[in-house]
């Protein structure tokens, strides 16, 4: 440091009190997060790398070293990516429609988004099995209309899985995008137009960048939900599409291998964290 020691300005009492108050308010949430969230995660990491003979990476070697478990990781990623892309494609235009709607139409549309959130995921996934099974509503209707003669196999296919996942996770994509679109000042589009931007150019250069924060929030939410979904793949596709989530459940509940389950959990968490961190980075404002 410098050789001339200037008398440090005495911190005023009010600043100290402000800091103390802020710290006091933050303390309860910090304790809850640290005790109930961070600590278990550390324990989970510990369980995954500590075997009977001390430090071991055998669980991770099993996950990344066998074709079957690489396939499991791939299945989870595939479910997450497909669900996220399809919900995004549906949600982006839907958010604009929702933001433009007025009065009763808007209320009804918002209600159709919020009400399904009140129903349990199990109920919704089970509803899809009723709709899609061989003697289900969809097949019965198609046969009755004479479009098909024999029932099409829909349940327990990847299509059924993705359709169900998209339906169940859709509100988590629409709501954050809608929140941004509804706040978007219509003057931005008008300013772009008067500056010479055609509607397509204005959309690409102004509207998309300005709604990106909503898209990123939606992508982070839906991806982390669908990549770790357990109920949806269990009910809609079952054994033949093992995911990281179903693998964790099996490791704990059937195989009694907590170390392996914990390792799969850490991998799943890492994937979700990477995607969320990447999207947060993309959404940053220009420096």
């Amino acid at each position: 440091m410098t050789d001339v020691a200037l008398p440090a300005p005495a911190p005023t009492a009010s600043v100290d009190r402000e800091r103390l108050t802020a710290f006091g308010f933050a303390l309860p949430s910090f304790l809850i997060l640290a005790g109930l969230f961070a600590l278990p995660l550390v324990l989970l990491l510990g369980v995954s790398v500590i075997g009977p003979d001390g430090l071991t990476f055998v669980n991770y070697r099993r996950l990344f070293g066998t074709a079957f478990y690489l396939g499991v990781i791939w299945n989870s990623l595939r479910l997450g990516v497909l669900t996220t892309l399809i919900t995004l494609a549906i949600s982006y235009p839907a958010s604009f429609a929702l933001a433009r709607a007025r009065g009763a139409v808007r209320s009804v549309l918002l209600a159709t988004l919020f009400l399904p959130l009140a129903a349990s995921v199990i109920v919704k996934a089970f509803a899809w099995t009723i709709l899609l099974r061989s003697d289900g509503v969809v097949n019965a209707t198609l046969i009755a209309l004479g479009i098909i003669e024999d029932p099409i196999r829909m349940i327990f296919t990847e299509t059924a899985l993705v359709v169900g996942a998209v339906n169940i996770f859709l509100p988590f994509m629409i709501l954050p995008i809608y929140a941004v679109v509804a706040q978007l000042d219509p003057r931005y589009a008008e300013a772009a137009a008067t500056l010479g931007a055609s509607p397509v150019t204005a959309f690409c250069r102004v509207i998309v960048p300005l709604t990106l924060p909503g898209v990123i929030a939606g992508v982070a939410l839906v991806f982390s939900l669908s990549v770790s979904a357990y109920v949806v793949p269990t009910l809609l596709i079952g054994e033949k599409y093992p995911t990281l989530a179903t693998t964790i459940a099996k490791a704990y509940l059937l195989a009694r291998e907590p170390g392996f389950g914990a390792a799969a959990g850490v991998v799943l968490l890492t994937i979700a964290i990477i995607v969320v961190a990447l999207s947060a980075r993309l959404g940053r404002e220009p420096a």
Partner: protein
Amino acid sequence: MSDSAPHLTVRNVSKRFGATTVLDRIDLTIRRGELVTLLGPSGCGKTTLLRVVAGLAQPDQGHVGLAGRDITAVPPHRRNVGVVFQSYALFPHLTVAGNVAFGLKVRGVGKAEISKAVERALALVKLSHLGARRISALSGGQQQRVALARAIAVEPDVLLFDEALSALDRKLREEMQVELRRLLQDVGATAIFVTHDQDEALTMSDRVAVMNKGRIEQLAAPRELYSRPASLFALNFVGLSTRISGVVVDSKDGKVDVETRVGRLSATGSFQAGAAVVVAARPEQLRPTATVDENTVAGRVHSVVFQGSRTLVEVDAGAGERLLAELSGRDAATPRVNEEIRLAWPVSETFAFPAEARA
């Protein structure tokens, strides 16, 4: 670069929103290099007229012409207009320079040319040093300048300002009025301002269009607007005045005699005898006097308000009529409250308008 040929023409433009007529057969012609203000209260249609010129609103009937072509059906992005919005509508995801460059980029202008134009536009608004800043890091006054630079950079045929200064605080607004007018004159821009602020209108413009209920009540130079208002609305909206209602008793040679509750007054104008009118004069025309001449009214001083270079004196003339006189610092004695005084003003500076029918 003043050119007398019409540059912007609005012909017979009407616009309705549901049952409300927002623009009622508007005609307006603006020359190249002219600065025109649309002045009026909220809801008078001034912003809608600006939006029709910008192409952001479609008129139900009528035509808009700019720089020699009919642009009525041309979408805004092909009109070559520049708009400065009240909220500025600067793109928050772009830097200052990015905002200014936007119009040129979407026009496909070359990179070297863009950076030159951006430099020029930012220099014009004295923000050259802030090109790399984020919009959120600017003050309101700086954002206003960026919005102006962004609109000017594309060299539009006409610049449109929608209450562009109203978000600034008063002192900054007054500075910007003078600076903006000089800047626009320097670059030879044709501009339309929309405002409800009469000071802004008088300061900024070559001509002012006073709008009321979707119509232009008067289109005149600021000085003429003030000294020769065309209607009671224009009189009330711009500047202060004394207004006394009465009935016309005689009318000849462009002069009317009006019987009022404070005596007989004369004014310029011609009305039929028996017409209900309002007689009005600007406050600086009223002078304390000792003699009784034409247009002399006596009364008791109700209030005296000192405003620096001028003093406003309100006189209670009885029968509910009030006179407003403005005395400059050079006037000798300022009357005191409750003092009895006599005020006189020239007939040539007295207006008569038809009294507005009241329900």
